[in-house]
């Protein structure tokens, strides 16, 4: 009884001296801030807030709260890069939420950039923070997989600028051309706010091992902290000889596959690389997983309509999307399919098939340069040297980014179109924590 009263007195004293909320309510408020950036701002408000926010229990609560109770519409940016010539960013699409996230928050004078500054003047958020020799190979969440040379990879968080150089790859990897490799990254932040990740590098496409055709590769896991060989067994008869970099969604990696189709290099299907499936050892003691081959939809346009500038793929809310953008009789038609994997077997649902309500200038070529990772009704379309956000459900378009780069001139863009590769970066409330490991 006496204790209860004492507690009450202490509490009312606190609220007398600082009119406002009891401390426990503040914790609930801070929990609801949509990004860690705001938490850090708050930790400079007063000592109480600093202590509360710095407490590991609070971090865990925050991560869990946002992992489980919040919608998955994170701020994002999409880097359009050219492969394999430069691997340099040529355009950066930035979502509105991301812009809001980056609003200046310094205590006083340094808020020089006015709110009305146009998006094009400060077009580069991510590239500026990249090491100059780095090439982007893959993304997952807010983490980039960078290639720092033939035998060196790193993971990098462009927001916190933390970089982790992975150990050198095994010596045999080095003989394979950098440009021929396909890389993938899978990562997640668990409820204890720790990052786990897997880096997949496919170094040689299609080797005959006995009866089987395999993709040769290596893998690096945050659990083992070492490189291991990992080969992927290809289903018999899967028609491809080239693949794009791997895109990650819900822990699974996808790749657009190219092969010989009636004598031409055409998109033939999508490779699915599921890391959670069992491994087995092959005759040489190398671990091997199976990848699967997903056929294009039944009503997919055939022939030249399958060339790579006509076909794009991406992920929306972790699920596969496929698009075909072709010009027939002076009109552009945009078709979009959504991967439906209710069961083990993936099928395609066509979700859009209509003429593009978008007036490109002159005879310009168009290309789907990316998908909005959370809004299933938005694609990004490259036209001349500009990227437009296109809402296909209620057709409307808006210019959102401009291509620029050392090798790009106005009239060479058509040439490069086949090599545009988008990397999507999503920024969840708790940035993926990256810490240096001590090198052996």
């Amino acid at each position: 009884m006496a204790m209860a009263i004492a507690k009450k007195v202490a509490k009312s004293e606190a609220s007398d001296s600082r009119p406002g909320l009891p401390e426990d309510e503040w914790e609930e408020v801070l929990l609801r801030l949509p990004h860690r950036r705001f938490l850090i701002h708050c930790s400079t408000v007063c000592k109480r807030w600093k202590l509360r926010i710095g407490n590991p229990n609070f971090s865990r609560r925050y991560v869990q709260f946002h992992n489980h109770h919040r919608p998955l519409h994170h701020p994002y940016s999409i880097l359009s890069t050219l492969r394999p010539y430069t691997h340099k960013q040529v355009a950066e699409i930035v979502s509105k939420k991301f812009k809001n996230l980056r609003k200046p928050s310094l205590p006083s004078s340094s808020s020089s950039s006015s709110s009305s500054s146009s998006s094009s003047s400060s077009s580069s958020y991510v590239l500026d923070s990249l090491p100059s020799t780095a090439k982007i190979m893959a993304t997952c969440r807010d983490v980039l997989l960078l290639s720092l040379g033939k035998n060196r990879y790193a993971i990098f968080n462009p927001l916190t600028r933390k970089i982790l150089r992975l150990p050198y790859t095994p010596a045999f990897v080095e003989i394979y051309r950098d440009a021929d490799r396909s890389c993938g990254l899978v990562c997640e932040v668990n409820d204890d706010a720790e990052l786990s990740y897997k880096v997949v590098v496919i170094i040689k496409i299609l080797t005959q091992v006995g009866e089987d055709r395999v993709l040769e590769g290596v893998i690096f896991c945050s659990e083992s902290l070492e490189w291991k060989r990992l080969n992927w067994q290809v289903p018999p008869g899967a028609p491809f000889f080239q693949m794009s970099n791997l895109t990650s969604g819900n822990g699974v990696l996808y790749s657009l596959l190219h092969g010989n189709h009636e004598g031409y290099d055409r998109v033939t299907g999508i490779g699915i690389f599921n890391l959670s499936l069992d491994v087995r050892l092959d005759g040489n003691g190398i671990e091997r997983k199976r990848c699967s081959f997903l056929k294009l939809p039944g009503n997919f346009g055939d022939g030249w309509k399958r060339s790579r500038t006509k076909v794009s793929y991406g992920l929306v809310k972790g699920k596969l999307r496929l698009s075909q953008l072709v010009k027939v009789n002076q009109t552009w038609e945009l078709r979009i399919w959504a991967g439906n994997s209710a069961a083990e077997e993936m099928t395609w649902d066509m979700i859009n098939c209509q003429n593009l309500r978008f007036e490109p200038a002159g005879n310009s070529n168009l290309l789907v340069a990316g998908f909005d990772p959370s809004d299933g009704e938005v694609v990004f379309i490259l036209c001349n040297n500009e990227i437009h956000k296109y809402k296909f459900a209620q057709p409307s378009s808006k210019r959102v980014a401009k291509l620029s780069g050392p090798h790009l001139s106005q009239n060479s863009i058509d040439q490069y179109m086949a090599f545009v590769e988008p990397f999507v970066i999503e920024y969840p409330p708790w940035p993926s924590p990256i810490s240096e490991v001590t090198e052996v």
Partner: protein
Amino acid sequence: MSSSSTTTTTTRLLMLKASDGVTFEVEEAVATKLGAINNMVEEEGSEDLICLPNVNGKFLGMVLEWCKKHANNNTNSDKGNDEVNKWWDKEFVMDLDQNTLYHLLMAADYLSGTELVDLLTEKVASMIRGKKVEEIRETFKIKSDFLPGQEEEIRKKNSWAFE
């Protein structure tokens, strides 16, 4: 038998008495949006008069207004109603002054009105984000108690968050 018992539960009225003696007569379905009241009602032999010595009448009235809206709109639950609720919630918190907001939040928390706590804490959070640190202090009347240099140190350690 079963039908008569449902009619009694939907029409049962509860009297809620606030700290300043103001009483409210509300339908049980409305009051049980609040976890604390729901618990009391579920206890065997609860009385129809419930005293709430920690909540002032003004704020209890507002809390109940919110409950009423949400209890009504929840009876026929479809997507359109969800939108209506959201819009109504937005209006509800839009013009609250800080003092009212704080007291409402404390009342909602005391009465275990989880959804309402969520709405109100979200509102306070929206007053924080995007503001500069000085503006946050000013808004919530908090004085910095850092020693010289301490604040700068945090900023240095987390420079990415201030760019």
